[in-house]
């Protein structure tokens, strides 16, 4: 088991991949160290959100993902 990080929308292009797997617990600091510096810079911006297990975090720096969790990185949306 591992934590799956999903790159959505433009973050997928920036990361150069759809997703990545990391072993063990994933918190905010480790997430920033795990992704590329370009993606980390985006994550620090207020307009980028993070969801863990289908719930958008009110405070993304409180991220605490365990083995088996899915963490989605959510850039600003544009639908319709």
């Amino acid at each position: 088991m591992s934590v799956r990080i999903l790159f959505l929308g433009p973050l997928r292009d920036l990361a150069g991949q759809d997703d990545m797997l990391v072993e063990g617990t994933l918190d905010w600091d480790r997430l920033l160290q795990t992704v590329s510096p370009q993606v980390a810079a985006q994550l620090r911006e207020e307009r980028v959100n993070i969801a863990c297990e289908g719930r958008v975090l009110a405070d993304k720096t409180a991220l605490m993902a365990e083995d088996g969790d899915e963490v989605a990185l959510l850039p600003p949306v544009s639908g319709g």
Partner: protein
Amino acid sequence: MSIGEALAAFNASYPDAGGTASFIGKVRSDDDVKALELTHYEPLTIPGMEELAQAASEKFALAGVLAWHRVGVMTPGQPIVLVAAAAAHRREAFDAVDFLMDHLKSASWFWKRERRDDGWHWIEPRDQDRRDLARWK
């Protein structure tokens, strides 16, 4: 099911409503846009749309509400989104459709990019979209 069939089925579901208002959003054929791609994140997108439909039902006096959004690659002229609201009176139906579209444009979990002559470009909500959304706050 086509847009027309969906709208007809929705309308037929509410025979006692005074009216049904609807909006179809399509890929614009302006500039040099060759294609549009919509992506989503289902664990958030589907519950989010269900909550949006519920919010519209509570905010306006509706008999029923329909919110349908496509994902994938679409070409100019093709439909992207269909929303409809059935209500006893037209104002509630019109307003509900307006409300649903403003939220689908800039507050739902979709990402949109368009392909032009020089490649793909990601689209962000315009300031106008954000102002439209703020009207409902």
